[in-house]
Every structure is written in structure tokens, then in C-alpha cells.
């Protein structure tokens, strides 16, 4: 704990916070030769590490997409696993170039903490998980329960508000690390586990008997999860945001990892422009990237739908439905600005 915070202190007191001291994060990343991405290492589907040390997940794919956009090579990324508590100091101090760690975009994080959010790579909401044997059907029955929660999250704030506004009592049991919360819930220290609903699906699978636990229907908050960068570096901010938008646009255009080369020959001018095939287009260059930046992203991680299904959807153990994360023209919220 202390180390990372001290790093901020020293960083703040002596050297000036991170990138502000130099030209810009994009230039820094290019000069370094790799992207340093802050991620989760314990949340399968979003960011987790397998036994061989490989990272995988929806957030990981976003980091890879940014690396592909900048370098044309999705392997030029290094991951920094961060707990909920450590993630913000790590970004503030310049230890990482971007944060993609199931982080909720809130007003105070955007303003007070000095970050910038825009793209949302997963629309989520907070839920509750309980043991089946308790026979709970609704969160409104939870008065008097002991609730396990992770510190430094929006989760603990929503929890307090929800129970207060519904006049319910509860006993918070708070830990810093997710493993500790998992262990306490497993040991029967608390009746309820609360966090982002996607997280609950992922955590339930890691419990010894997933079928003994149910996720309650209530969603008590809005949790738009997305990448964050330090405020005041709009060039870098654009690169990160549009790496996500490129994945969404690709899905809209029907461009996939498999057909991207073929699609370059498409007669559709929007697709041609997007894939850098339009004569004289400077979109890539204006971002400070190469002409084929979007092609590189799609080759590396596929379109948004592919990444979704592979990591958290039907191609994964989580089997989460698209829901809010479907494209805007299919009833969801995923929407990319025109790439022109």
C-alpha cells in the first residue's frame, strides 16, 4: 500500500506529476516502445491472469487495441495489476499510461481526481449475490444482513445510499483486496456480496459451488466502466477513446477479425475511410497514428462484438448477454461517433 502512495507523494513533490513534465503521453509511449496499462488481475472476463502469466479479458483487449493502434503491434503492452485502491494513485503518478480496470466513470473521478473518461467499454450496474439457501428473492429483504464489500470503490458508496434510502440496516465488512472479500464471503462472514453485476457473475464462477449462490435481480446503480487517462492530454485521450470506438464502428460495419483484409476492398466509402483506404484521408495521421490504425486494432482483437462474446459473452464461461452493451441500433448503448 504505502509504496504506491509514497510514489505519488514523491512524484508530486519532487518531479511533477507524470506526463505533464514531458511532451505528451502518446509521444512518451512511442519513445518507450510499449504501452503501460493498469488492469485488474483477478476478474475473469475483464482482466485476469492465467497460470502462465498471460492476461486476458475485455479490458485487456482494450489495452491491446490501443497498443495495436499506436504500434501496429498488440504485443507492445505491459500490464500493471492494480487493486481498486491502488489504481488511481498509479495513474496520477504516471506509473501507467492508461487505466482499463472495470472503473466506473463518475463526476468526481473525472473532475476532482484529475482524470478524463469518455469511452465506455461496458455498461454495468451494481448487484447483490447471496446464498441460495437464504431464500432471498429481492434486495429489499436484506435488512440486518452482513455485507462484504471492497474499499475504494463506487460499490461501497452506492451500498450505503441504497440501504439508507430504503431504511434497511446492514453491517458492512470491508476489505481492500478482492481475494479477502471472496474469502470472507466464502467463510460465511457475511450474507451478501455486492459489486458490479458483471463482477458478481465472474466471482460466482470462482466460488467452490457456483450453483449455491444467486444474483438478485435488483441493479442499484449505473456503472459505466471505461478507460481513464490523466486530464489535460487530449491527444492521448483521443487515441484511447477512439481505439474503443473503432471496435464499435467495426461491429457496426460488419468488419471482423477474419474479413478485415477483404473489407478494405469494400465499395462503401465509410468503410474505406475507416480502414484507411480512402485517397488522401488524414484521419490516422491527425490522431498521430498510422493510416491503417483501425485495421491493426481489428486484426488484433476483432470488433467489439467479437471481443465481448469471447471474453464475457457466449464464448466465455460467464455467458453474459449483450443487454445494454448491444449496439445502439440493436437496442443497446454502444455507439461510436462517425469516423470521418
Amino acid at each position, binding site marked *: 500500500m504505502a509504496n504506491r502512495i509514497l510514489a505519488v507523494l514523491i512524484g508530486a513533490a519532487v518531479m511533477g506529476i507524470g506526463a505533464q513534465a514531458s511532451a505528451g503521453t502518446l509521444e512518451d509511449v512511442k519513445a518507450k516502445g510499449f504501452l503501460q496499462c493498469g488492469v485488474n488481475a483477478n476478474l475473469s472476463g475483464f482482466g485476469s491472469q492465467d497460470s502462465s502469466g498471460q492476461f486476458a479479458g475485455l479490458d485487456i483487449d482494450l489495452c491491446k487495441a490501443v497498443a495495436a493502434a499506436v504500434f501496429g503491434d498488440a504485443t507492445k503492452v505491459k500490464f500493471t495489476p492494480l487493486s481498486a485502491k491502488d489504481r488511481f494513485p498509479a495513474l496520477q503518478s504516471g506509473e501507467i499510461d492508461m487505466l482499463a480496470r472495470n472503473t466506473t466513470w463518475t463526476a468526481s473521478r473525472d473532475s476532482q481526481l484529475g482524470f478524463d473518461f469518455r469511452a465506455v467499454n461496458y455498461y454495468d450496474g451494481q448487484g447483490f449475490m447471496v446464498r441460495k439457501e437464504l431464500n432471498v428473492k429481492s434486495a429489499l429483504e436484506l435488512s440486518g444482513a452482513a455485507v462484504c464489500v471492497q474499499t*475504494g470503490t463506487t460499490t461501497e*458508496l452506492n451500498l450505503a445510499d441504497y440501504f439508507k434510502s430504503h431504511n434497511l440496516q446492514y453491517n*458492512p465488512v470491508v476489505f481492500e483486496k478482492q481475494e479477502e472479500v471472496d474469502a470472507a464471503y466464502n467463510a460465511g462472514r457475511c450474507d451478501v456480496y455486492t459489486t458490479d453485476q458483471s463482477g458478481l457473475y465472474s466471482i460466482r464462477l470462482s466460488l467452490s459451488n457456483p450453483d449455491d449462490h444467486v444474483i438478485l435481480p435488483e441493479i442499484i446503480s449505473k456503472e459505466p466502466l471505461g478507460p481513464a487517462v490523466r486530464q489535460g492530454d487530449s491527444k492521448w485521450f483521443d487515441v484511447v477513446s477512439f481505439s474503443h470506438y473503432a471496435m464499435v464502428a467495426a461491429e457496426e460495419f460488419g468488419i471482423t477479425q477474419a474479413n478485415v483484409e477483404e473489407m478494405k476492398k469494400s465499395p462503401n466509402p465509410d468503410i474505406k475511410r475507416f480502414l484507411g483506404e480512402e485517397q488522401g484521408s488524414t484521419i490516422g495521421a491527425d490522431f498521430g497514428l498510422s493510416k491503417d490504425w483501425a485495421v491493426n486494432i481489428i486484426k488484433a482483437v476483432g470488433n467489439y462484438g467479437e471481443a465481448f462474446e469471447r471474453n464475457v459473452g457466449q464464448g466465455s464461461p460467464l455467458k453474459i448477454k449483450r443487454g445494454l452493451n448491444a449496439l445502439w441500433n440493436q437496442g443497446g448503448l454502444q455507439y461510436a461517433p462517425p469516423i470521418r
Partner: protein
Amino acid sequence: MASADARDGDGRRASLLYDPSVRAYAYQALTVLVVGWLIWQAWSNAAENLARANMTAGFGFLSGRAGFDLGQALMAYSSDSTFARALTVGLLNTLLVGVLGIITATIVGLLIGIGRLSKNWLIARLCTIYVELFRNIPPLLVIFFWYKGVLSILPDFRAIRAGVEQAKAADPSVGDPLFIISNRGISFPAPIFQPGFGAVWIALAAAVLGAIGFTLWANKVQAATGKRPPALLVSVALIVLLPLAVFFAAGQPIAFDYPVLGRFNLSGGGLISPEFLSLYLALSLYTASFIAEIVRAGIRGVPSGQFEACSALGVRSDRAMRLVILPQAMRIIIPPLTSQYLNLIKNSSLAVAAGYPDLVQVGNTILNQSGRAIEVIAIWMIVYVTISLVTSVFMNWFNARMALRER
């Protein structure tokens, strides 16, 4: 400065320059200035850099709404309270576990330390094993161990609830148990003091004062006559019986808030949480192993002639230990004991590992929710330094009292 001296050619000034005490003050003032300048530089630099990162510095945020709840609060607290109040709750939790931990560690350490010197082979060995076991594990692991251990030893709450339900079904006159030990903690009937209870506190205070007075008088009598009135017996009797008598005379002005088995959890009554329990046990038993060694060293430091003289005079060995050896050993024990007390308080900041809401855990939460890393760390440093200084001052005073008084 030297040139100024040369210009007015004043001999006295020149000598002032070589006056050792003036020089000492000058150096001290210079040091203060340099340190002050460094701190000011660091602060203004940090503030400037924070501003560039679009963050602000200052303690104004402390009056903002906390927004989160805490598992254990010794004063009224809710998510509507301020950050400052949340920190105060954390501080009180730190002090609680610190004070209780110090008391327990001292008692256990004293017993184990004396036990290691015991002539009984088994006791001596067991005490050695205790010391070596606890002393060689990092405190964080000890805390983890106790938390996992406490949680897995304590029976599951749901099982207990099921048992009670069953008993109730069989016999409707059965109520909820008064004491419940489960993985939700140890719950007990919490006393609620009724208006008349003040008299009992006054009686207790009077009894304590009376006991002190009697003991002082007994000391005087013993010094004069060699015979000691039964001071201990009288004191205990006074402290127990007087408040008890007043309590009954006032019509037992006390009620109890009994724990109730709810659908999920316990409500009502007092509760010692597993988080507090495991942290308290871990800190006390860990520190006790160091205190045991200090006690052993202290006792060994008393010349063996003292003990031999006692036996030659026919003083029983337990009395010799209590009246002759320990008072002398205290002089060796107290200074290192102080550092163990300070260690215990500082180690309590590892409470995060057991989910106990101490000053550091609460501060961490605030730091994360508000982004005020520098301010929160500054508060931590000030608070811990203050607690440590107060502890040191007290122990130094105690040490001075115990020091050898030449007559």
C-alpha cells in the same frame, strides 16, 4: 556578517562570534530554517504540481460527506457524517485495539518471560516455543493467520440459528441465547445504564480513592512497626462491596439490550467483531513474545546474589520474585518495553488485512474516494507521531519513578 563586524570594529561582537553558546543557538536556528524551507518547498512544489494535474490541495475536504459506512464505530457515525468524523472513528478504533493490546501483551509477556526462567522443564520449554514461534513470523502473517483462524474456528452463524430455531419449535418457552459465539463475532447483553447509575460510579470512585488511602497508610504502619495491615484484602473488598451495595440500594438501575437472532445476522446487544478479535489477539500475542524476552533479560540482569540472599533469609521464591527481583528488573525492562508498546501501536495499522476499520483503513478509503493522498498521509503521520510521543512521555515518567532512588 564577518565583514560587518570588521567594519564597526567592535571587540565585543567579535568575541560573540566565538561564544560557543551563541554559536550553538545560531546553528540550531539555521537548522530550523533549512528544515522549514525544505518543508515549505516540498509543500508548495506539491501544490503546484497537483494544480497542474487539475487537483487541489488542502484540508477543506474533511468537512465533506463521507458517503460510506463503517463496521465498528465507538461514536455515532453514519454515511452522512463528515470525513473528519470518519477519521475520528478510525482513530478511536486504533486506540481501542492499541490500549487493550498493550495491557494484554504486557500481562502475557510477563508471565511467559518469567515462565522461560522456570525450573519446571515443561513450562520453560513451552514458553520458549511460544517466543520463538511468534517472534519469527512477520506481524502481517500473524494477523492473517488469526483472522483466518478465528473465522474458521468460530461456528457458523446459520448453523447456530438453525439449532436455536429447532429448540424453539420443540419448546416455545425457549428464548434467544444470551451469549452467542459465531463467525459474526461474540455477542452479549449490552448494559444500558439508567439515570440512578451515576451513584454507582461515584461509589466506585470513592472506593478506589479509599483503597489507595488505606494502602498508603498500611505502608506507613509497616515502615513504623514492621507489621502490615491486610491492605490488599481491604482494598479489594472496598472496591467490590461499596459499589455493589450502592447498586442495590439505588434499586438496580440497569437494563440490558439482549442480542436477537435475525433472519441474517445478530441485532441488538453488544458485539465483538471477528475483525477486532483477531487483530487484538494477533497484536497482543505477537508483541507478548518480545516483551517476554525483555522481561527475561531484565530478570537475568538482576545480580543472582539478590536471589541467593533472599533464599538465605528464607523468603519464599514467589515473594522474592515479586518484592525483590522484579522491582529491580523493572529498571532494565521499561525502556525497551516502551519501544514494544510503540511497535504494537504502529503494527495496528496492518488492521486492513483483517478488515478492521482503524485509522489507516478509514484513511485509505477516504484517500481513495476523495483522491487526497497527501493530506491523508499527513494526517496519518501527525496522529501516529502524537500517539507515539504521548506513550513515550508517559513511559519516561514511569521509568523515572521506578529508577533507583539513592537515600
